[in-house]
């Protein structure tokens, strides 16, 4: 596979390989909304006591993906808006999935043995780890994918790494892969590993040596080559040939949990790190774990910005609500920019890493930089330096699309394939004119989608009108005839 573009930034606060188990919190705040899901169909009542593994709510738009109850406790619906709050928590009584035989038989009869497995994955919370590699949406559990991409690499600084997820879990990982294979007929599973020599990578290779149906793909350790959309595209997979399921290492473990142990997947490992973190590490916790407690424990006292995900592609943690969402892979603390630096652009800059080697840091060996959320410059018109095209992994021309969008030429932007943007954020990161390219692009993609949707609706309405008119005509004709 040939990759283009990409760029590694190295902020301070890289998480170590250890996993810390977080202490049980007083209450869990389960957000009803996350980036992909909106659990609008509530299954519990206020004040009801629930067991770990129970379904609290469902997302009717996403194949009834459940919001599982992580612990035994009492539900409170009114306390915080947009959240289900779980109080009086205890670890006891975590239920193993036990549908009665009759129901199982019923489901099996309806959807077959493979369907039962899929049903189990959805209802035990493993399905939310899956995403369609092209669109990023939740795939249909009953669909047949043309391929599955399993990525054990994560390069966004900093979200939890694949080797941290898989540590001591390698046998479960291979078992999960086997389960995945049983869902397929002859379609391939691509396993993405980093192209570096490490004990971990060679161990994984040893484990899957016998599996002819797994083809290993090695990607260079350069952000964002771990992106599932990018890998699917580089593999030459076509959207029209059916969905491509993408999942990461933790997803395979979840599949194993759901299908071998038939237990709900409620434990999660996320990373905490970044320049503002007092101690960068990985945390084992459940969905709904109060973010306040994490911030209190792992954040320096300085003003920081908390990011849900990595520095380059994450989102504001506060937008996600008060608890860790099911899609959170890491929390990054970035320094809040306060000082206005005196003559910053004239400094030699031994401590600031620059893509274009315009600072003295170019003569240093790689080092980690303490990033703040400052834009570090004034916004200017594009000077056509071409750095955005150099780093773009999708092979589009960000500066050209920017110029089109600046002139409101949406159609031209669409033909320059703004939709290929994978929102890695590198162009915005690098731009010396400080143009918010990736935000512009995501807005443009939304606008184009919206226009398409409207067109589709208009066409439908038109077709309906024509059909009605014809029916009316026919009926009038009939009346006349009679």
């Amino acid at each position, binding site marked *: 596979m040939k990759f283009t573009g990409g760029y590694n*930034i190295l*902020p301070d606060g890289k998480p170590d390989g250890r996993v810390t188990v977080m202490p049980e919190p007083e209450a869990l705040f389960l957000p009803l909304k996350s980036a992909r899901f909106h659990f609008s169909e509530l299954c519990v009542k206020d004040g009801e006591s629930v067991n770990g593994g129970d379904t609290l709510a469902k997302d009717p738009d996403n194949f009834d993906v459940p919001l599982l109850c992580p612990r035994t406790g009492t539900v409170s619906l009114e306390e915080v808006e947009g959240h289900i709050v779980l109080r009086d928590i205890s670890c006891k009584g975590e239920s193993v999935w036990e549908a009665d035989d009759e129901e199982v038989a019923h489901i099996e009869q309806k959807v077959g043995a493979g369907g039962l497995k899929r049903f189990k994955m959805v209802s035990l919370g493993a399905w939310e780890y899956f995403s369609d590699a092209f669109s990023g949406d939740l795939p249909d559990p009953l669909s047949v994918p043309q391929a599955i991409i399993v990525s054990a690499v994560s390069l966004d600084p900093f979200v939890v790494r694949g080797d941290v997820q898989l540590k001591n879990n390698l046998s479960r990982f291979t078992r999960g892969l086997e389960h995945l294979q049983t869902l397929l007929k002859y379609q391939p599973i691509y396993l993405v590993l980093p192209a570096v020599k490490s004990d971990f990578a060679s161990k994984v290779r040893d484990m899957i040596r016998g599996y002819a149906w797994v083809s290993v793909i090695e990607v260079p350790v350069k952000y964002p080559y771990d992106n599932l959309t990018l890998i*699917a*595209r580089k593999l030459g997979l*076509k959207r029209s040939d059916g969905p491509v399921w993408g999942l990461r290492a933790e997803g395979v473990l979840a599949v194993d949990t759901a299908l071998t142990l038939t237990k709900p997947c409620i434990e999660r490992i996320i990373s905490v790190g970044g320049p503002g973190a007092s101690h960068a590490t990985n945390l084992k916790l459940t969905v709904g774990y109060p973010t306040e407690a994490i911030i209190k424990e792992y954040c320096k006292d300085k003003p920081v*910005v908390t*990011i849900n995900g990595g*520095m*380059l*592609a994450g989102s504001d943690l506060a937008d996600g609500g008060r608890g860790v969402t099911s899609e959170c892979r890491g929390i*990054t603390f970035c320094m*809040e920019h306060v000082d*206005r630096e*005196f*003559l*910053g*652009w004239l400094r030699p800059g031994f401590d600031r*890493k*620059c*893509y*274009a*080697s*315009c*600072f003295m840091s*170019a003569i240093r060996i790689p080092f980690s*930089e303490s*990033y703040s*959320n*400052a*834009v*570090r*410059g*004034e*916004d*200017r*018109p*594009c*000077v*056509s330096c*071409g750095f955005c*095209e150099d780093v773009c992994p999708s*092979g*589009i*021309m960000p*500066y*050209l699309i920017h110029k089109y969008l600046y002139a409101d030429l949406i159609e031209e932007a669409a*033909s*320059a*394939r703004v939709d*290929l943007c994978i*929102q890695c*954020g590198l162009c*915005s*990161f*690098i731009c*010396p*004119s*400080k143009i*918010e390219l990736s*935000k512009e692009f995501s807005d443009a993609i939304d606008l184009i989608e919206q226009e398409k949707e409207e067109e589709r609706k208009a066409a439908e309405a038109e077709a309906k009108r024509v059909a009605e008119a014809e029916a009316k005509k026919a009926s009038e004709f009939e009346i006349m005839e009679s």
Partner: protein
Amino acid sequence: MKFVYRIFEKVRPTFEEGGKLSLIHPLYEAIENFFFAPAAVSIGAPYGRDPLDVKRYMTAVIIGLLPCVLAAFYFYGLRFLPMIIVSYGAGFVVELLFAIVRKEKIAEGFLVTGLIFPLVLPPTIPLWMLAVGVMFGVCIGKELFGGTGRNIFNPAIVGRVFLALAYPSQMSGEVWVKPGHGILGRVLDYVTIKTPTGPDEGVMATVVKFFSVNADGVRSFFTVEHIEAITSATPLGLAKKGEFIDVMRLAIGEVTGSIGETSGLMVLCGGIFLLITRVANWRTVVSILLSAFIMAFALHQSNPEKFASPTWHMFAGGLLFGAFFMATDPVSSPNTNGGKYVYGILIGAVAMLIRNFGAYTEGVMFSILLGNIFAPVIDEIFFSIRIRRLKNEE
């Protein structure tokens, strides 16, 4: 630096909306942001940003020009200082006027234009002419198109072409001063082509009478040291007559020419710095030099008597300076990488054609202007190829 910031805080209301001097807010803003990085923070992902901004980007070009600037002081003396000041001053006035009228910010592009412009002129150019040239270049070549980032021509080249066409006698002929040499060169001289001017003879006579001192001593004390320039033809001018100067002398800078292009080695020093920092794109530079070299080589092979050797062409005149500092201007050169090759080949080939067959002795300036004209067309072609290729991507 707290106290400096406090001063800014204090005077800021005067320049903001409703203040007495709100008209020149762009000027205030430019000065404030010159000293203190703006407070803006990123609104979404990515949260950190690369430290490079346009100020630093332009500063890198200025650092790249430093060897040429230092060499200019060495070769042509102190007169270069007022030239730089006039160039910056006149360019800045135009920039500021446009910023006020448009209610936009002052962009940093003129920092480079203002320094490049005196470097591409003959050392004896009258200062008022330099001011007219830079104003014309910035106004017509850049601001009319919408300012830095939107211009199609390199403003410095527009200004120089304007001067070359409007004032041919001050831009060619007996204007080329022999560069200084030795340990100090002309570092302490002020070179003009005027004869030395001394104090008024009437005043002189009174002074001599009053103090009863030696007249010659007074005269030499009060006479401003105007060194009369020894002019001579440029190597390109000599080449038209079939006389080729040794390449080593060209590289070191023992020959006449525009201020910045005198020493090929100095241009190379700064130019390579620009390539390393990625501020200048290597594709443009390499393709210009390579196409010029191949063209010159072919001509030289056909008739060594008439056409100079390719290495001679590399170091003679403004080819190196143009290739490293003027053609690489990212705004006026093509954006696509493929386009940069085509653009470079065009410039190199046209420059060699003008030099060897044209009426003008130097063709780099015109060839870059021609390249600027073609750049959008070249880009359009490469864009359409790229977009066609992207069409079938998933």
